[in-house]
């Protein structure tokens, strides 16, 4: 399966809605509007010639400087027969970070989306159990966003009786 074949298939189905095809270190990467993410994932998974049935990875990235496209959700899919990998990226603004969940399509996505929600605050619409997974429930911020610095190593106001440094 060549990149051109995948691009052709996607173009035939979605036309100009999929764009920015580029090969980054052997992985075909492309962008799409966030409303289309489920349609594209379903198409990639269920078209017999493509059958990207394996969701390798799902994560989010924060670009605070690109206004209106601050959060990127990226899906890495793989065809297990041909070992071909493709990466889909969708962007969303940080004010309303709503992206449709892929957890009904791939069970893998369940916890990965919870992780992306936990650290970036991406709201996966339709996810059945979108709650924090690593951090405490009381946390009121999303720690992997760029505006949150690491803890100041010189701070002195902390009670370090238990976790002294």
């Amino acid at each position: 399966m060549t990149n051109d074949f995948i691009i052709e298939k996607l173009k035939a189905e979605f036309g100009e809605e999929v764009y920015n095809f580029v090969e980054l270190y052997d992985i075909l990467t492309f962008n799409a509007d966030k409303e289309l993410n489920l349609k594209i994932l379903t198409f990639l998974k269920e078209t017999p010639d493509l059958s990207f049935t394996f969701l390798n990875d799902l994560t989010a990235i924060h670009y605070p400087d690109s206004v209106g496209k601050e959060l990127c959700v990226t899906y890495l899919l793989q065809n297990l027969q041909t070992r071909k990998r493709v990466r889909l990226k969708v962007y969303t603004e940080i004010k309303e970070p709503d992206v449709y969940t892929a957890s009904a399509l791939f069970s893998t996505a369940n916890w990965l989306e919870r992780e992306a929600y936990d650290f970036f605050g991406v709201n996966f619409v339709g996810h059945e159990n979108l709650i924090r997974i690593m951090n405490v429930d009381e946390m009121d911020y999303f720690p992997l966003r760029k505006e949150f610095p690491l803890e100041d190593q010189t701070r002195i106001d902390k009670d370090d009786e238990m976790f002294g440094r």
Partner: protein
Amino acid sequence: MIESIESKNNIPLPEGAINKKTYTMNLGPTHPATHGVFQNILELDGERIVSAVPTVGYIHRAFEKLAEHRPFYQITTLTDRLNYCSSPINNMGWHMTVEKLAKIELPKRVEYMRVIVMELARIADHLVCNSVIGVDTGALTGFVYVFEFRELIYEIFEEICGSRLTTNMGRIGGFERNFPDAAWNKLDNFIKIFPKAMKEFETLLTRNKIFMDRTIGAGAISAERAINYGFTGPNLRATGVDYDIRASHPYSSYEDFDFEIPVGATGDTYDRYLVRNAEIWQSLSIIEQAIEKIAPLDPTIFHADVPDFYLPEKEDVYKSMEALIYHFKIVMGETEIPTGEVYHSVEGGNGELGFYLISDGGRTPYRLHFRRPCFIYYQAFPEMIQGAMLSDAVVTMSSLNLIAGELDA
């Protein structure tokens, strides 16, 4: 962190059942049978599991955030602490990711040396996992016996890099030093004496009636569900899917080696055990091939010629201007790294360990995401143990080779 479980608690049981309602039990977070910090809130009907809710995150250490604040060469220590049963694989995986980004070509000898340490780590990882299945089925002997050989592997690591568990082995561009003679001798010794012990270990468990009764059918999963859940590594191969990164996306010259990918059929605990045992034999054969392949190569080469990334000899730093500049730039994390994003995966001890690295050309990664295999496949645990006995849950958990450090990152 805590799942909402209120609605699932104390489910009424039908008329005529011994108990009126199911009862809730915490398996973990600190329980001797979980081998790590895992909490499962189980709903039990007698001894049968009605539902399970796993809770993760107890030892979350924010590796992805920390990695965004560290120069590239300092991230190796974070990878150590993912799957700490086979840290050299994680270390090498990280070095290879940066090398892929910076387009560094390694000499064959270095790649074969990496193959040797990665396969040793895989043997150690599989030994721990398989012998722990034995422990959970009541056979402590095998566990104590093979730990002697894991110890031999750790001694080899000690000769190579100075540490045993969290190895921090290798550098971007190669190894920090050549393998000393002691390491080669210990490796030869290990290869000589280990097969006999491995055979004994297999004799102890593989056709053992008690072990087979406890593991066959326990925690089975179909290939289709396993793929949907993102299983990788021995757990996926036990279901019959021959997906192995070493063969499907070869790295570090794995394409030069001749090895088989063992697969199972039913995806139950017994198959996972068999696949791991078969992989240990394959790993041994790979190590033997690597030693043969290394023999004719120049024995002084242990790193690539990349002064931008690889620290110069300390002696040269005092004598040569260039070495001093490179030394300073590397230590201060000011090496020039290309912009770009790269995904590199290696076959870890328990599955596909992926590194998704986005570099903006700065001194630290812009974003680094670890694809941790056991975080992904642990999701399937409730489905795998539903309807099983409590004791099956324990065996299933140990056969999945869950490592808390990797699960929680």
